[in-house]
């Protein structure tokens, strides 16, 4: 067996591979290039009904190259890092690029945008990562299951699948016009999926999960397992409600599905290609004043945190929506040049919402009658027009209280109308997604059922 190398030696080796790839690209004829390499150790334990179901463990690696060849562009990746193979791959990729039409907008970012990286310690790597062993993972999985099976009504439980996973990853980015960055991060996730028997023969399932950059920040398995069990048991006896236009509360965990549908149309690529219902809306009101969120890349321990983005641009916070008004798009270098606007960053990091003062329970109490959405099922959102139609499940709300479970229903509308109907925002950002969505309340959504 090969002797384990120190963390510093691993990093140095990865930096070396990345630099060599960038050099290789230039030697083989690229006028400029960006190379990114990663290495990750990933362990995943799945546990079902009292014993191990599956254990996956691997160290994986890969390399990507953006090649700028006489004004032409190719983006390529490989997991075959043997020196000769890599040389052939780079030469082949450059030859491929030479077949293309030149594109004057394809150049590396302006190096001025690499400068000014925050010095804040993002604390993305848990120093205790190595302390987690196979026995500890199995213990956590068993605790998840035991907690799920201890909830009231647990006799209806058919099966519990618990999972425990962790990743230690490292990446290096080198651009030939003066950028080099390295990044190390860990994440730890636990979760449980619980299937229950409904007296009518259906076997509804629910889940709960929790994850963080540092293991000590993950909720205890007993808490997550219990939540999964409770959520599953609460699904028993679900019915389809009537079609109506009613107030809808979207649970914080589920709300990412609605907000995620904004991220595609917020991209400069979509705007430049006329495939965005937000085209021409910068500076305009898109939602109610409660739609207020920023892109915050510099949150210590954040799941979406970074000091530089995928192009090497120094990460900076910026407003996306302020009191309902669209302030900024997600703009990468290429589409920024095509549109003639300054880049922000290609993709969202962490979202930071202007939170409301009320808890989910208080929001429900204020709602009166309506629908609480706890999960979406399929459906889609048309990024060009804003039309959406999404399957939902959740609970009826009567007199401000959660009533019976509903399923096999749907909500539909148009995003340009939906966000104007945002009437309340909770105080409860969902911690296990970089979108950190709070509970969202909408007035008068079209719900389809019976």
């Amino acid at each position, binding site marked *: *067996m*090969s002797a384990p190398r120190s963390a510093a030696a691993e990093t140095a080796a990865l930096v070396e591979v990345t630099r060599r790839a960038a050099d290789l690209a230039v030697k083989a004829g690229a006028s400029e290039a960006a190379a990114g390499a990663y290495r990750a150790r990933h362990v995943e334990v799945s546990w079902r009904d009292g014993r*191990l*179901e*599956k*254990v*996956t*463990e*691997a160290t*994986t*690696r890969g390399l990507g190259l953006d090649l700028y060849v006489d004004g032409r*562009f*190719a*983006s*390529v*990746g*490989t*997991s075959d*890092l043997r020196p000769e193979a890599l040389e052939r791959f780079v030469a*082949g990729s450059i030859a*491929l*690029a030479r*077949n*293309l*039409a030149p*594109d004057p907008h394809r150049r590396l970012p302006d190096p001025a945008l690499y400068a000014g990286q925050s010095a804040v310690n993002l604390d993305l790597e848990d120093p205790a990562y190595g302390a987690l062993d*196979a026995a500890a993972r199995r213990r956590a999985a068993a605790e998840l299951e035991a907690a799920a099976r201890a909830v009231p009504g647990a006799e209806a439980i058919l*099966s519990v699948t618990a999972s425990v996973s962790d990743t230690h990853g490292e990446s290096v980015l080198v651009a030939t016009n003066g950028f080099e960055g390295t990044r190390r991060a860990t994440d730890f996730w636990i979760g449980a999926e619980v*299937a229950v028997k409904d007296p009518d023969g*259906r*076997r*509804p*399932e629910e889940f709960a999960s929790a994850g963080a950059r540092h293991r000590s920040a993950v909720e205890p398995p007993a808490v997550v397992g219990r939540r999964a069990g409770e959520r599953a048991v609460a699904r028993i006896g679900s019915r389809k409600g009537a*079609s109506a236009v009613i107030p809808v509360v979207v649970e914080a965990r589920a709300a990412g599905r609605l907000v995620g549908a904004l991220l595609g149309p917020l991209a400069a690529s979509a705007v430049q*290609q*006329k*495939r965005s219902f937000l085209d021409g809306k910068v500076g305009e009101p898109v939602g109610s004043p409660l739609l207020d969120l920023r892109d915050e890349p510099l949150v210590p321990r954040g799941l979406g945190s970074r000091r530089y983005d995928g192009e090497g641009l120094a990460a900076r916070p910026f407003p996306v929506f302020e009191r309902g008004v669209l302030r900024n798009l997600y703009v990468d270098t290429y589409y920024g040049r*095509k549109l003639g606007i300054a880049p922000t960053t290609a993709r969202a990091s962490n979202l930071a919402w202007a939170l409301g003062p009320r808890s989910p329970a208080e929001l429900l109490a204020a709602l009166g009658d309506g629908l609480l959405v706890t999960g979406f*099922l*399929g*459906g*889609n959102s*048309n990024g*060009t*027009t804003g*039309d*959406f*139609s*999404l*399957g939902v499940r959740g609970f009826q709300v009567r007199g401000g209280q959660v009533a019976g479970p509903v*399923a*096999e*229903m*749907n*909500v*539909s509308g148009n995003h340009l109308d939906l966000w104007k109907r945002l009437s309340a925002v909770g105080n409860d950002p969902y911690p296990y997604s970089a979108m950190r969505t709070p509970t969202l309340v909408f007035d008068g959504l*079209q719900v*389809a*059922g*019976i």
Partner: protein
Amino acid sequence: MTESQRPGADGPRDGIGYFARFGVTERLIADTLAAALSRGGDHADVFFQHRIGSDLGLEDGAVNRAYASVELGVGVRVVRGDQTGYGYTEDLSPEALLECARTAAAIADGPARPGPVRFHVQAGLPDRYPLSRPWDAVLPDEKLPLVAALNERAFAADPRVRKVNVFLRDEAGAILLADSSGRIVEDRQPMTILSLSVLAEQGGRREQNGYNVAGRAGIEFYTPERLDRVLREAVARTALLFEAGPAPAGEMPVVLAAGSSGILLHEAIGHGMEADFNRKGVSIYADKIGKPIARPFVNIVDDAANPGARGAINVDDEGNAAGTTRLVEGGVLATYLHDAISARHYGVSPTGNGRRESYRHPPLPRMRSTYMLPGPHRTEEIIRSVKRGVYCVNFSNGQVNIGAGDFTFYVKNGWLIEDGRLTRPVKDVNIIGNGPKALEQVDMVSDDLAIDEGGWTCGKDGQSVPVSQGLPTVRVASMTVGGRGA
């Protein structure tokens, strides 16, 4: 049909077939399997994969971007009962393979089992994706005109067209599976997909739609007829959206057009019939084998054998023969879709549905090409029978809750049916139903089966695999249409 050489004749150190170029030998495989079985276990296998992908992209009038990818790696699996240990690596050195095998072995805790001493290369696989030339022998010069012509023709086809995007992807791939029974199976798996997306403007409104075609095929797949169809469908489907409005909301009859409506089967029954969910007792179809679940004229198959189909395979990713599996025969639930673990669990033969996204994943029971066989009704008769409902023509995506049975599919283009006639186009509507209920309510099936040629991809447990689907025109007596208004 595979290029596997017969090992043994020249000694055990010979390179094995396609993977000889990476230094893969019978000895390396034997050592890896021995390490995998070092703590016992019922079964071990090693899965090598090499996949070379190449994409050309057209935007704003020029083929101005290319993407290329190489995946090379190996996964080692140890199975004990229904427990799985799995490890993978991109490093094909003996040291890395042994470490990977020892990692996978940790699932077992018994005494070592001997690995196979003799290997046999499985010959006589079917040839379901014959190619005139592999994709790595096709020059960019041959592909570029194909992409560029679609752009010009799309702009010429309709003056409202403002933006055109074209992508052409091709893949040359090879897999090699060796297992503890001494079996070695190799397959070469090509794939191609062509996608045309159109954005049009009319009176300040914009609409976008597209069409794509995919198959395990070579450059000859792109016949003039197929390219004409790509163009015609992409432009027509976009133009129709300007006339389309929302569908109504609520329960009503739903008629599914022949072809990509097979998404109904994929979501309403296909996933629920994957045996892993049933083995665990969490599928709504658990305990329903041998029971009637649909009208007698409903017959549903999952088929690996359609030549050139995106969902076709010569052999599954566990090395098992893959043919035509009958899910529903005469309305009766006949067979689950099995991988090796579930087949052992149920004491049946594997059905060749053990598939994986790549060497980074252990296999799972997955669909291939899922469709319903033709039925006794006529398409006109089906549409005429509906007083008020929705006719669904094409789709973008679907999803299912396996246990609750609720499933959805998203309709991009459809029509309102009023008094037996298609009256106005509808768009962007999700339809939601419950699997067993929806199958019971399939009360008319036409004779016009079409298997869709589109590039469908199915996701499960974080793994994506290519699939196909098909359907004759079908009426479902009632489903919930996620539209607006009454």
